């Protein structure tokens, strides 16, 4: 994310983080303002403040993790989504967790039912 010198300074945006994420990083806060021109730059800024937070938010595809949603205003966003000045960026956990097999009925990967419930059978 090297800044192009001819590019204007990134806009200030407001970011809201989910409580279970804040619980993982002592000193982190639910709501903060930072400078970022894209969702990817928001992640960069969060990682700089709280090292390790990128791994909790993004996987190695790379992309926002499958069970997290990022909204810019009311629109779902990706890492590439550009941010206007004053944008409200909300990172939310999706309705999942608990039992992963129940969370996504019928979801299939590689032709097999997604089953992460345990070692063999729980």
């Amino acid at each position, binding site marked *: 994310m090297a800044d192009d010198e001819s590019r204007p300074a990134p806009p200030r945006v407001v970011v809201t983080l989910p409580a279970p994420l804040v619980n993982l990083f002592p000193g982190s806060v639910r709501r903060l303002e930072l400078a970022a021109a894209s969702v990817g730059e928001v992640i960069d800024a969060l990682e700089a403040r709280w090292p390790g937070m990128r791994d909790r*938010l993004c996987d190695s595809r790379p992309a926002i993790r499958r069970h997290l949603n990022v909204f810019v205003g009311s629109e779902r966003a990706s890492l590439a989504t550009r941010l206007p000045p004053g944008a409200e960026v909300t990172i939310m*956990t999706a309705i999942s967790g608990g039992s992963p097999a129940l969370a996504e009925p019928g979801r299939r990967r590689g032709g097999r039912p997604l089953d*992460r419930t345990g070692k*063999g059978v729980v």
Partner: protein
Amino acid sequence: MAKKVVVLVGTKKGAFILEGRAGRRSWALRGPFCEAWPINHVVADPASGTIYAGGGNEWFGPAVWKSTDLGATWTHSSEGLAYRAGEDPIKSVWSLAPAGRSLYAGVEPAGLFRSEDGGRTWRHVAGLRNHPSRPKWQPGGGGLILHSIVAHPGDQRRLWVAISSAGVFHTADGGKTWEPRNRGTRNDYLPEGEKYPEFGQCVHSLAMAPGMPDRLYQQNHCGMYRSDDGGRNWRSIEAGLPSTFGFPATVHPRDPETLYLVPLNGDTAGRFVPGGKAAVWRTRDGGESWTALRKGLPQRNAFFGVLRQAMAADPLAPAGVYVGTSTGTLFASRDEGESWTVLAQHLPAILSVETLLVAA
């Protein structure tokens, strides 16, 4: 100096720690730790007493948690715990193993990582996934998971891992190159004449006999086996057991001939203890004969299983044995399995049990 046993329990919803007092007669439980994430394995480095917990959260992905104060405070990291961009991301950490100054982590989808800084950062041991058999590895019921890591006590270059359902692999060069070591183990899910492949067996757990690094035991989806040559050749030791199916295999802390298993009623009948009667089965002669140990375990209407990492022994004499059930009960014996008591119940489904000895 007086010592006490600490039992480390990984569950579907967090890690728990039990501390034994009064000669293992009284126990205090703390937890859940790790923000109630699914924790597949909790281990301790016996040299430092540092506790590591591996797991993965549906929202936030895989991580290894660490506590240097017996669980009072925790940190977590997954720095470097990732495959290359574009590959299927890592979902969860399944198995942890301290080995000298290194800490190994087995993950899903199956692969091996190593940390040289106490779990702060990780490097992929890429040689395993570069093995030519890799494109043919198939997931078992729990996913394509690397669930067992066994380090040679005298040679840090040597390591065995077990993958469901790719089988056992061995490295003699610190992870650069690997060879499958499954000769003699059966895969009942292949056609006649094809049941003994080079790889692809559904190994459920792997254990090394104390003081005999070439003596390995494995509980497989299809049978129970012993090797006396570091896994090059395996032979069945399932005669005398009530079934060929189960998950954990736990060695005695000192006697290489003693092994504990929890056979279940088969892979299609609920995976319960057989007949609704719980038993831990013990051999004292390397698998030639087996004894059911039932005293204190429920003998009617018991419909639970014991998962692959959910049994452990402690190093005291006589050895303690600890068994965690899929229904959240932790049973313990302080007389090598002769009799059992309940240490905890109503926990989440227990995924792993390990022990640590610390100053009382």
